[in-house]
């Protein structure tokens, strides 16, 4: 069991408040989409969950295997150690390390070290391309391959909860489709709980169980199913200009 409950979260940079009184949850085993156009606070929210930004108010609770942790105020390293991993926006690979070194460093977490060989095999099976390029420097690969490596590296830490920030950014439409499908497949195989921030709402809704639309740092709409989101007037207005 693994879930995240965010209540009355407020956060920002200096005096600029980006998120206000935001409450949402990701229940165990769900894939939840965090939708919204640029600059509405999706990444800020993700940063708060990962401890990269300290919230000004509110709480972020993560329940992992029956134990509840308050993430607000925790250090990123400790949050990762709990079993929460992030595939960051822009992938953030180690460009001058090889594919295999990038994957191995993903398993730094104590519990992940023991199962390193199994997880490497898993990654190479899920992404045969990475196996072919295992000795290549990560920075010399194409955007699609880098996104695969970023996903694989996050999975190396044996996470229970996976956060993905803008997986489609910088990828060609066909690759976006494949990446999204791959996320669904990996989620199923690894039995993850997934929170995915995405601008490309059509692609995100193909695999999401539910979704939140975030506008100006507040939840503007909470959709209980992909269908409900598809039918929503706000989404039509935001994404289709209708």
């Amino acid at each position, binding site marked *: 069991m693994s879930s995240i409950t965010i209540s009355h979260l407020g956060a920002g940079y200096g005096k600029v408040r980006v998120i206000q009184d935001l409450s949402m949850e990701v229940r165990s085993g769900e894939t939840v989409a965090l939708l919204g156009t640029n600059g509405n606070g999706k990444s800020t929210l993700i940063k708060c969950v990962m401890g*990269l930004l300290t919230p000004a108010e509110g709480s972020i609770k993560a329940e992992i295997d029956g134990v509840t942790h308050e993430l607000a105020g925790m250090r990123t*390293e400790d949050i990762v150690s709990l079993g929460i991993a992030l595939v960051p926006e822009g992938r953030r*690979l180690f460009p001058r390390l090889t594919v295999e070194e990038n994957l191995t460093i*993903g398993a*730094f977490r104590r519990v992940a070290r023991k199962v390193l060989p199994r997880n490497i095999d898993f990654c190479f099976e899920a992404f045969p391309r990475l196996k072919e390029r295992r000795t290549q420097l990560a*920075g010399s690969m194409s955007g699609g391959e880098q996104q695969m490596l970023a996903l694989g590296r996050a999975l190396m*830490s044996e996470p229970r909860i996976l956060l993905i920030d803008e997986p489609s950014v910088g990828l060609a439409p066909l690759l976006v489709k494949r990446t999204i499908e791959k996320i669904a497949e990996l989620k199923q195989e690894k039995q993850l709980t997934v929170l995915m921030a995405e601008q490309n709402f059509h692609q995100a809704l193909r695999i999401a169980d539910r979704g939140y639309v975030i506008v100006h740092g507040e939840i503007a709409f909470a959709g209980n199913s992909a269908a409900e989101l598809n039918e929503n007037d706000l989404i039509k207005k935001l994404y289709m200009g209708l």
Partner: protein
Amino acid sequence: MPDPSAVLNAVVAGVLLGGFYAAVALGIAIAFGMLDIPNLSHPAFVVMGAFATWVLNNTFGIDPVLAGLIMTGPFFILGVLLYRLYHTCFESRGEAPLQGLAFFFGILFITEVVLVLTAGADYRSVQADYIGVSVNLGSVTLPLRMVVPFVVSIGMLLALQQFLSRSFTGRAILAVSQDKLALQLMGVSPTRIKALAFGISIATAAVAGSLLIIIQPVEPSIGRDFIGRAFAAVVLGGMGSFWGMLIASIILGITESIVSDMWNPSWAPAIAFGFLLPTLAFRSGGLLGRKL
């Protein structure tokens, strides 16, 4: 036409000298190449290591190499503390590049002054059975005071290379300068990794210092002689590449040895540095650096 055996002897002497340069450059390769810490004071720590070796050797009769290894512990702690200070005062405020250089330049002078005040400005040397003994292999003479440092230096390099490429901590050290935030997302504290790695870098200075005082008598400001060469070896080899740094050290050693044996010792450093410019012109990443 110079005597072939003289040339051979000069080359061998150069290789051995290069091995010692590599021991000095190793810590700089870690600090500059892997951690982005502009530790200009590294050669001063090497000299400090030499004096620590002298104290242990003179007072307790401990073998110089063993003395150097014993001193790696205290030097490691010293390195960790120095990094903490540097991090709090400069790095965490984002003022690292220029102020950091000034900081370490200051540490260089302070270390020298402390050495002069505590140990005096005289030349100091150590005693060991192998100092002053030579082995002859055909026409090549191998002075053991050069062979021992060469072997110890290569051993230290191999051990660290293995540590960096095989251990989780080692790989985190290789990654820390590439993307700190990503490293945090792997569950690693970049500050702790850098403190640890900088501690290791200063610990290598203890060993390099013991090798220096085996090779020649040492006085407090002698580190300045090596600053240029050690930095050149790191840049020439390719930032962050140990093997490149070793090859570069040996090239510098051979060049220096041949030029001073065959021609004029004063020209040796100039010729050695002459290698730096064309190498960087044709291979900006150095000999073996990982380049994208």
